[in-house]
Every structure is written in C-alpha cells, then in structure tokens.
C-alpha cells in the first residue's frame, strides 16, 4: 500500500512518514500544494494524507482539482481549523475523512487503513482469504491463526493482493503500489518477491496469470498452467 503525505511542517511530516512506514506503507512526501497536486495527479496512491494549510496552493483547491479530474483516491484531510465550517468545506471539496491537529500518530494509521479498506469495497476490519487473514487494525497477517513473518516489501505486496483478492493485478500495478517514488522499480524483483511469499503462505493461494499478472484467491484447484 502506497500513500502520499502532503504536509508542509517538516518535523510533523517526517513523523507521519516514519509512523506510516513502520505500519507497512510505502510513503511519498510533498511539502507544498503544487508538488502535492502534481504527485497525486501522476502517481498511483492508495490513499493521501493532505494538510489543508499548504503553501503555494492550499489543500482544498488541490483536492477540488483532483476530484474535478476524476481521481477517486481516498483522502484524509489534516487541518488545524476545528470549526465545522472548515470541516464541511473539506467534505464539500471531496475529503473522505479529517483529523484535527494535534492528533495521535496512531490515529492517522487507523484512519488510513479504514479508508483504504472502504475504498476497495471491504466492510469489515479483517480480510480473509482461506487460511490467510489480515487484521487491519493491527496491520498483521496470520496464517492458520499463527502470526506470519513478512519483510516490509512482502507485506506491502501481500496486503495489496489481499485488498484486491479475486482480481488480476499486473506487475506494473504492484510495483506502483509497493514502492515509493525514490526506489528502483524492477518488475523482476516482483517475481522474486512473489515466489518468496508463495513459500511462506503456500503456492496454492497466489496464481500466476500469464501475460497479465497475479491473482490472490482461495480457489480450490491450483490455477494457471
């Protein structure tokens, strides 16, 4: 899962990014409104944390422009302004949730996970696929009720597949949602990571669809030739 954090206060931005990375997200940062707008427009994010008081272009107009050009990415708005007037303005611009400063870092993680889960069409906070379970509140995988050890990259890939289970996910899509902007993207690495994950959760769960990508499902028969 990959998120954009648009916050101009460097100290706060760094803390949010650090906490989100710990929670298993790939994080990009924007420090002003124009950069935020550009990144949101060109990169594939699963969610955005957007401060409304950004320099150069304020968060509200960034959000309005995204929505006007059809971006449906879930947006968590951060605002120092606690009046309902400002919150309503945020919702009218297309925000999906808001947090008033100051807030707990944990709260950002919880809200983001909920937003991503809802945007991918899941109603509960636990995603299940056969013996594999993802507890979204804790951000932990379990296999047959035992905690599953995964590296950060494996976690992101499996988490993305889990949210989109039953659908074919291409290598490019996976790379886009698993790496931040500064990482080297090599789709061969994806294959290596997928095979490592298969070793941990069992090959049966992840099918390779030739020429298209991968699909996570609890299909009884082993898929693919």
């Amino acid at each position, binding site marked *: 899962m990959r998120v954009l954090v648009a916050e101009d*206060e460097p*100290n*706060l931005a760094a*803390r949010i990014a650090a906490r989100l990375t710990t929670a298993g997200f790939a994080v990009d940062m924007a420090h002003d409104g124009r950069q935020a707008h550009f990144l949101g427009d060109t990169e594939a994010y699963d969610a955005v944390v957007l401060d409304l*008081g950004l320099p150069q272009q304020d968060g509200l107009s960034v959000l309005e422009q995204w929505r006007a050009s059809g971006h449906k990415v879930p947006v968590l708005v951060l605002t*120092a*302004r*606690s*009046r*309902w*007037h*400002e*919150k*309503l303005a945020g*919702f*009218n611009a297309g*925000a*999906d*949730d*808001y947090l*008033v*400063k*100051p*807030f*707990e*870092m944990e709260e950002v993680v919880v809200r983001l996970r*909920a937003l991503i889960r*809802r945007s991918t069409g899941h109603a509960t906070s636990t995603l299940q696929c056969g013996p594999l379970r993802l507890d979204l509140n804790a951000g932990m995988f379990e296999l047959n009720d035992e905690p599953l050890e995964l590296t950060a990259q494996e976690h992101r890939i499996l988490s993305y597949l889990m949210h989109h289970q039953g659908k074919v996910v291409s290598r490019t899509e996976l790379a886009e949602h698993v790496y931040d902007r500064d990482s080297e993207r090599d789709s061969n690495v994806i294959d290596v990571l997928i095979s490592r994950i298969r070793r941990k959760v069992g090959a049966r769960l992840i099918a390779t669809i030739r020429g298209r990508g991968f699909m996570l499902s609890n299909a009884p028969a082993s898929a693919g030739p």
Partner: protein
Amino acid sequence: MPKAVSSLKTRLVLAALAWVAVAIPIGGGGLMLSFRDTLADSFDERLTSLLGILMGSAEIAPSGDIVLARPLGDPRFEQVYSGWYWSISHNQRNVLRSRSLWDQELAAQTGPVSATPRLRTVQDALGKRLRVAEQTVDLPGITVPVTFAISGDLASLQADARDFNRLLWLSLVALGAGLVLAILAQVSFGLRPLRKVTANIERVRMGAVQTLEATGTRELDTLVEEINTLLDQNRNTLERARSNAADLAHALKTPLSVIRSAMSAEKRDDLLQVEAMQRIIDRHLARAASAGPRRGVTTPVQPVVAALVRGMSKIHSERALVFETQIEDGAIFAGDAEDLEEMLGNLIDNACKWARTRVTVTTRLQRQELQIEIEDDGPGIPREQQALGIERGQRFDESTPGTGLGLAIVSDLATLYGGALALDSSPLGGLRARLQLPASAAQPA
C-alpha cells in the same frame, strides 16, 4: 422642543399647503381690488364721453332756448327711473331733461365754468346710487352759464364686479386644488430615490444583499457610497477577526502536534497538559471566531443540516447510521451560518458517536424562537449529568472528556445569541439535545 413632524413628505406637503393658503387669498384680494378700480374708471369714462355727446348735441334755437339736435342713442335714457338720466339747467332750473327722469329732477350743482367734468356719487329720491358727471360751460347767446349733467346707475357696475368676483374665486379655488395635487405628485416623485434607499437598507439588514444600489441622484448617491464603505469595513473587520483567530489556532496547533507526537506515552501528565492546551485553544477559538448576533444576518436551517448530514455520513461511514431530518420551511436562524454550522455540527457529531442506528434532527418554530432537537438511540447520559449541563455548560468538559468540549462550545454560542442548550432523554432511548435560538421573522429574499 418642537413637535416632531412625522415624515419628510408631511413636512414638504404642509409647507407647500401653508404657502398656497397664504398666496391665493392675497393674490385674489389684489385682483379683486384692482378690477373694481378698473370698472369704476371705465364707468366714469363712459359717463364723461356721454356728457361730451350731450353737450355736443345741445344747440341754441333762434328763440334763444336750448334744444337737443339729436337724442342720445342709449335707450336707457328713455326708460322711466332707469337711473340713467341727463339734464341741462341754468339758474338752478332744469331746462331740458331726459325722459327717464319723468317727474324727477337731476339736482345739478352749478359750479364754476370748467373744461373738464366734475364727478360725484349721489343717492336719488328712489334710493338708487347714481354716478353723476356734470360740467358747467358758457354757451354763446346765453348770459348765464349752463350746467350739463348726466348720471348712470352704479347697480350695473356692482353686478359686473360681483360676476367677476364669483368667477375669480372659482378659478382661484380650482388653482389651489390643482396646486395641492401637483405638490403631492412632486413630493412623491422627488422622494422616490429616498424610498428606494430605505427599501435597499432593509434588504441589506435582512441579509438579502451586501451593498446598497445607487439611486442615480447625486445627493443620495454620496450617502449610499458612504454607507457601502461602512458596510464593507464592517464585513472586513469581522472577516479579519475570524481569519486572525483561525491563523492563530493553526500556528499553535501544528507545533502542538509535533510536541504531542514526540512525547512518549509514559509521560501521562505532560500529555494531559498538551490536551488541556488544545482544549483551551479550541474553546477560545470557537468564541473568537463566532460572528455573534448581528442585525439582519439570517441563515436557513435546511441547507446547513443537509451539508452536515452528508459530512457525517462520511465520518461515520462505518456505522451505517440512518439520519431522519424534519426541517420546517420557515426555519431560519437569526444569526451567522458558520455559528449555526458549529452548533449543529457538534451536536449531530455527538449524536452520531453515541447512536446505535438512528439520529434525528427536528425543528419547531414558536413565534420568535427556533427550536432544534437532535436525538439519538444510543445509551444516553444519566439525569444528574444532564442537569449539570443545563446549569453550566462548562461542567461538560470535566464530566465527559472528549465529547464534552463540543457541548460546552455549543452552549457558549447559544448563550451568545440569547438562546440555550438543554439536554434530556429522548423517546428513542438516547440523548436529546434541544437548542433554542432566535428565529428570523423575515423570509430570505
């Protein structure tokens, strides 16, 4: 103290009426007098010219008697006692006289011989007032001076004057009435721009428009410009105060977020201090950012509730809450939109936090009062705490941390508007918050 005149229009009309009431009688009187003089002068002139004709017609017959060569043309000299008489006399005796005199004499006064006639007014034996012109002349062939006299009846003159006066006053009354109507029309035409400005100010007061329209009259437009400048300043001052408060909050809150995130969870006491700071900022920001009651600012309740419900559905999307709103058409808050959003936002959000499935928003209008009730079907709060809440909004933050601050802010704002927040139990099972606010009597334009 002079008694206040009720309106500009009355003042103008009264002043014009006084002017008409004085000018018309004076003008009429003057005309009447001068016409009477003119009539009298022309009467005298006619008599004098008739006298000249009479003298010109008199001849001395070879017998030495005075005879009239031609009769005077006017038939009135032939009508008995018509008042129109003539006589020629000498030695105090009428020698010749008009037929109309019949058995009377026109008592002629013999004066000195003169080139111009003498004029006087007499009363004859029949009681008629006569104007007499007479002239004493020397005639060749007669030793004593001869007096020619001619008289006319003044009654005809007076009849003419009466006719004229009647016509004069009739036309003056008509003129006066016409003037009054013209004045009324003029005043209402002249005051129309002023009425327009008054209507405009009313619309600004109601909040229907922001500035006054120009009237197209130079004198008033200066005033309109001044008022618009004042209105602008007023708005700007409020906007500045609000954005200052919001900027201050922003400036304080971001570093506060950093401090808070840097603190370890073990430093429980320090965290509490940070939370206290946050609450103080929120509470004072709410009060500072409030517009407070201002004349003429009104906000319909329906759109605010609709926007809030849309927002709440997103915030609490996990819960699949059902919102039921019953907002009357005439439910208009006599106050600022942002303040209403703040009050209802806090109350509805609070209801959403506690509700199991349902949140209702209902309005009730009672004359000048707007009642908005927000109810939920959650667990509610104990009666003792409700009572505390009604007495002192401040107690909320201590009794129920987290949700309390919102209620305290609502209570503060409602009090600012002369309203109140009351809490009791809802028939749905949860809390019922009843917000009493001033209602606007006016419909929004």
